[in-house]
């Protein structure tokens, strides 16, 4: 009887500690971005003095100013266009290739697939130097097309791998039926295979969207012209010019972070799936 009480007290005690730990970490994850979002509505004078999460007055004109004068409107659109085009490119190119590697016969199939796989595993920290030189030579540096193609390449290997693994596990009956009905190979890929692959395509879309929106190094190397830059690089140059205007910088940070947080919250299920699958890939 007594031991049961001790056991119960012990249980309550450990549960409290566990909850305290979890709560502390959760608050630390939420607080920084919440504080920046709240402070983006304050004035330059009060931004560090008033540290509350609810600003006394809501200066939405900070956002208007950041959007227009700070140029965040332009960079936001840039980021959006790059993300959408790159993700569309990756979905098309990688699903075509994955379908080919999984379903079609041609000499060198496995060898070529293994080269893609190998690229996922070998780190080449200097390759951006060579890529810079190559883009210069192709006159693709400082162009939107160059950046979009380079970013499609970044997401290609992993996406092909995820999709090929999916196609390998999927039964072929539907495709066989379509073939008997006289559907072409591309028709089968588009009308049968892609709709079946929707759950994996969602993982591919979410991860690549996160990756492109947050990308920094290639954008830094490729773009010289300010109007072409995506948000991540623009934030850095902005910091140099409007050094002392903290609420504007905070508005810019919020504009950059909020879309990705919304995407994450909406597509949360696929992120969990992608992380665990991606871990198996590694």
């Amino acid at each position, binding site marked *: 009887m007594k031991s049961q009480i001790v056991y119960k007290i012990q249980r309550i005690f450990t549960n409290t500690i566990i909850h305290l730990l979890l709560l502390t970490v*959760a608050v630390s994850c939420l607080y920084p971005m919440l504080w920046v979002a709240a402070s983006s509505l304050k004035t330059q004078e009060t931004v560090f003095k008033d540290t509350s999460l609810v600003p006394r007055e809501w200066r939405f004109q900070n956002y208007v100013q950041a959007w227009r004068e700070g140029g965040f409107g332009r960079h936001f659109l840039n980021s959006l266009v790059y993300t959408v085009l790159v993700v569309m490119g990756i979905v098309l*190119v990688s699903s075509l290739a994955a379908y080919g590697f999984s379903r079609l016969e041609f000499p060198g199939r496995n060898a070529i697939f293994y080269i893609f796989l190998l690229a996922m595993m070998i780190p080449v*920290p200097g390759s951006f130097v060579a890529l810079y*030189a190559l883009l210069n030579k192709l006159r693709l540096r400082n162009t939107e097309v160059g950046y979009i193609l380079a970013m499609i390449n970044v997401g290609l290997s992993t996406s092909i791998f995820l999709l090929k693994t999916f196609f390998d596990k999927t039964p072929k009956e539907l495709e066989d039926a379509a073939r008997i009905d006289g559907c072409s190979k591309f028709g089968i890929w588009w009308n049968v295979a892609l709709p079946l692959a929707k759950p994996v395509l969602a993982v591919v879309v979410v991860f690549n969207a996160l990756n492109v929106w947050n990308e920094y190094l290639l954008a830094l190397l490729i773009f010289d012209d300010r109007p072409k830059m995506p948000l*991540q690089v623009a*934030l850095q140059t902005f910091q140099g010019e409007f050094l002392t205007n903290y609420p504007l910088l905070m508005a810019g940070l919020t504009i950059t972070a909020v879309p990705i947080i919304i995407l994450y919250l909406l597509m949360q299920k696929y992120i969990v799936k992608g992380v665990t699958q991606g871990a198996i890939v590694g």
Partner: protein
Amino acid sequence: MSFQRLRSTLENYLFILPAVTIFTIFYIIPFFWVFQLSLFKWDGIAFTKTFVGLRNFMDIFSRDSSDPLWWRSIAQAGYITLFALTFQNALAFLLALACDREIKLKNFYRVVFFIPPVLSEVVVGMVWRLILNDIDGANLLNRGLIALGLENLTRHWIYDQHIALTTVAIVHSWKGFGWGFLIFLAGLQTIPKELYEAARVDGANAWQQFLRITLPLMVPVIILVGILTVLGTMQAFVLVKTLIQSEVAGSISVPVLRILNSMNNQDLGFGYACAQGLTFGILLVIISFVQNRISKKFSSL
């Protein structure tokens, strides 16, 4: 008939053609160019490159190398990596253990812990810079510590060059632990509950269950997370750039920043940057090879 087969095979190649083209131009060619360029002295602009053989590499390994910060930058990336391997992964594991049970708000925690990983490094670096900077006595962390009566823990987090590297490591861990957390949690959920029940019947307490069941079964997952942590952290650079910027410039750097620096440096140039990149890449391959070896040894036990 055979013409039709040829046609069919060519059609099959069309499926991989776009991927192979993009991959060749943007991955394979730069990959081989890195090796080639590392043997030249070239500023990246001039029409002619000067062949220098292995001199770039000899310079990197020489006593008075042209980039005196290079090896120190590797050591500093190593420090951040060690911090992430131990502190960050231990925290991730602990939190995963805490969430691998019937507990309130479990899904809330799962969602929240992955918010730092979805933010970009630029945003994370700049946000923490705003929190930790000393302008106008801003430093929210110090104010919090003072409010808690922990005045002797206050620091100039990003201005003191003895602290700044640890600050980077902590913020890096804050940003990254969510990955490990999700992978550990997925791993824990694959352990059959019957094992624990059987152990409990045999009279094993919670600690014994953890040591005899959870830990051994999680070794492959722990090593996997370890490998991902090393490869990711060693190549991180944006946080250093955005969080501490110029205050401690020169005293704190990481390899990718040095490569970028060499690239923009007239005296060193693209060739030297490629040689540094290769040296570093080989080091990373060796590290992950050793880690793989260790993991094989463990899983055969």
